[in-house]
């Protein structure tokens, strides 16, 4: 498998590690306890554990640890293993901080 890192070009997949679905967003909550602890825990439970088992195109995180150490967001077809796109994570490779959210 070959992955086109936006910084390094096309590289062998052994340089990368896979994390998984890139859709879940880490929940935020009020530290002072303003949010219901049950709701916060449910949101984190979703974020940490619940994943769709996609057969088809999926957005997923890959880490180029054997190269530029960038986190990448790839669109990949889980059936054919074809990469549709590979983009850098919002904070990857940036000298300046990125905007929150994408």
């Amino acid at each position, binding site marked *: *498998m*070959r*992955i086109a890192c936006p910084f390094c070009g096309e590289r*062998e*997949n052994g340089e990368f*590690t896979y*994390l998984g679905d890139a859709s879940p967003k*880490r*929940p*935020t*909550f009020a*530290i002072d306890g303003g949010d219901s*602890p049950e709701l*916060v*825990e449910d949101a*984190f*439970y979703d*974020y*940490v*554990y619940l994943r769709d088992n996609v057969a088809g195109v999926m957005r997923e*995180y890959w*880490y180029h*640890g054997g190269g530029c*150490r*960038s*986190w990448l967001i790839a669109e990949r077809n889980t059936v*054919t*293993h*074809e*990469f549709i796109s590979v983009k*850098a*994570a*919002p*904070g*990857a490779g*940036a*000298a*300046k*901080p*990125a*905007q*929150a959210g994408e």
Partner: protein
Amino acid sequence: MSGYSQSESLGRTAAVESASSARSQAASASQSHRLRSGGLIDRKVPLQFTFDGQAMTGFAGDTLASALVANGVKLVARSFKYHRPRGIITAGSEEPSALVEMRTGARKEPNTRATTQELYDGLVANSQNRWPSLRRDFMSINQLAAPIFVAGFYYKTFMWPAKFWEKIYEPLIRRAAGLGKSAELPDPDHYDKAWAHCDVLVVGAGPAGLSAALAAGRAGSRVILVEEDSHVGGRLLSDGGEIDGMHAEEWVRSASEELAGLPNVRVLTRTALFGVYDGGVHAALERVNDHVPVPGPHQVRQRVWRIVAKRSVVTAGAIERPIVFPGNDRPGVMMASAVRTYVNRFAAMPGRKVALFTNNDDGWRTVEAIQQAGGDIAAVIDPRGKVPAEYQAVAELSDLRVISGGVSDVKGGVDGVRAVVVTDSNGRTQQIDADCLAVSGGWNPNVGLSCFHRGKPVWREDIAAFVPGDAPRGMRLTGAANGEFSLGACLRDGHAAGAAAAAECGAAGHPGEVSEAGDEAYAISPLWQVRAKGKAFVDFQHDVTASDVTLAQREGFESVEHLKRYTTLGMATDQGKTSNITGLAIMAAATGRTIPETGTTIYRPPYAPVAIGALAGHHRDENFHAWRLTPSHHWAAARGAVFVDTGLWKRAQWYPQPGEKDWLESVTREVLAVRNGVGFCDVSTLGKVDVRGADAGTFLDRVYINAFSALGVGKARYGLMLREDGIVMDDGTTSRLAEDHYFLTTTTAKAGPVMAHLEFCRQVLWPELDVQLSSASDQWAQFSIAGPNTRKLLQALVDPSEDLSNEGFPFMGAREVKLRGGVVARLFRISFSGEMAFEISVPARYGAAMAENLMIAGKPYGVTPYGTEALGVMRIEKGHVAGPELNGTTTADDLGLGKMMSKKKDFIGRVMAGRPALTAPDRQVVVGIKPVDAKRRLRSGAHVMPKGSIAGPETDQGYVTSVCYSPMLQQWIGLGLVERGRERIGEIVRIFDPLRSEDYEAEICNPVFYDPEGVRQRG
């Protein structure tokens, strides 16, 4: 590089009369079945070899199989289950039968196909699976017991009594199973792995492949052409023909020369493609030096290529399939195409009186091949009952005996075929004398590579064979591999595929003209099996018969995947190349389904056997993986340190001194030297990360459970990180060197994963933070210096202006210091040993010098280098947790560090750490454990349960995680994870260790065994 590059002389040579040396004449004379002229062999180069100890001669250009044929050898093997005498069936890599043990000693290699092994001078081969000899094989009595060796025999025979399995059945099966015996010595040869990149990969160098490579190469794309044979040409080398008005061999030579002249084309012969992977990655095995006795100096035996290609053109040809009839495995029964290969390419006659059994036009080529070589065609048996138009003249001219019917038995013994029994279409039988039976059941396109991405082959009625269906992206299948069997079509389709692939890769050049040849007819009337009494083989390598297939059907194993596993059809080293399709056709007939309804089994790589050594390449023994050496490694090695592998690192484990009788004595001395004086240890293996930026503190607050933004500049703090699920990920000390600069350390084992995690947090979770990370693990050599005399030692090393007093450099202080000589170091007053201690970091290039200088500066205080064992002893004495406790199941509270969790901020893992199961009061937590009998040795892994309880999973309350002999307490002590442990200090528990048959009592105690108040580290 070209298939013809080695020698002009590999062309067809003149008759033996013109060969110069008497030696080669003698060689030729000794080869009873060698033709007097012809063949792509070099009669000027006779080669000596032995088979089963018998000396024979062949010629350069021979395979072992062709040399055996030339020497009149028919019996070459004994079959797997029944030990039936077997011969050579094919002339290629699909060979199921002629497997031999090649070479001797450490280079001995079993199950080598005689048909692909090139002959060399001094070659030694032996037959397999026989005792005491190939001719008289004791185990052939298995044939008498044949009724019990039927399909599903393993499942039916060794069922009971169950206790017999381990002691009797399994050893018995293991002794009987397998064919050859592998070498028991380490392989002395080297193997290599290499990458190659190209636009167009062409697989197979027959007419279609050469045509494709020429078109793509002329167009200007980067081409790699791989061919498993030693020469390019494919079937052209065996079946000849006329291309562009030239003899086929002339055309091959000219194509080969043209390819050699194209700098953008690389031809790899002796290279078999065995895998097709995602994104255009292919794997191929190059047999670099299998054709010589011993690889030359600095040369490898084999090389695994990973070839990245934008497009591929697979022209892997087709495999001729056998017909199933009783006695079809007798030595001397051979595929018709193989007969032609031996006659035409190798000038070796498989028989003098050849019977031909064919259901298709292509098989008829064999008539001419035998007749031109001076042999007799005993009869042609063609169930279609008609001579194909193309061959009518030949049939009439030679008064050919043509029988409409099928072969229903083969008479003969260990020396091979004596006669063929034919049952004609009227049911009459007759016996025909012959010493060779050439068989053609038609051709199966080599669809394997097209199916490696789960593409399903498609049935084509007109050729009664499967052709490729959905091929992997970027792959074209062309020529015989695509079911196009005529020479003209192979050349045209190959050219078109090569040109199209090149164009898709952006090549703008002209692909040149298509070579032209005739389009010979290929008509076939499918015949899979002749039903008659007697053993009729489908899979020659696994001894699977037609009746095994129908038995499987009767017993309900109708699916091809079940058929395969129940009968082991196609599961041998040949992967059923000659048997799978036939087996499923017989199954289709038995179930009344069509062949496409029955379907094929799934094709998977590798296409051909690949030695594990070749896959390993140079990654063996000490080069199995890369090593990481600490900056003081060579210094430590020179002092006789014993090293331990921790991940990729080699770390000094202890430093034995003369007279010390074991590791424990050395380690105890090192611990006492530190606790009573001063010692140092290389801790450079810790992961180190520079964290910089205005938001560095905020960032660390979010990844650690405790606060770092509030840490003062010049201070260090122990930090604990959780995973997002609330379990502890890692720990380490992080120091603030400047307002916007932290220096973070991780454990040795987690350096990589923590770096990836921190980068994820920075790049994905909080890209808005102004923070940058750089890994500094390899940039700094770090030493822990510990013991009451540490400060005195350091004062001799640092610039006199540096104040190391308790006031000038308090516990948990961290700052840059200047060393005598001007090098700037980072100094941290942190302690893992519990002693007065510092850790000092210097640029890695000074690491070895630092070790030397620590020895010099510490000499007056008896400084002692210590290894990871002493480090471990001291951390257990101090109750510090490490890898065995940070084991991926423990929470901060389990480790006794729950109070560190800040409530004032969000951090990774905070919410999930609060789940009921992770905060339950009966969790196993870290405690100290010491045996009641102070002389007893405690061992890690032993289970903890209440005193007096019955040992079992219900009473299990935890286990011992870390142990050591404590020189300070003068007894074995340990840490453990024990249910409700902190409430049970002082309780006597049962320690149960069934693996080591130990059972004793121990006391649960405070995990800090030594200096619980922490006075020493603050001294």
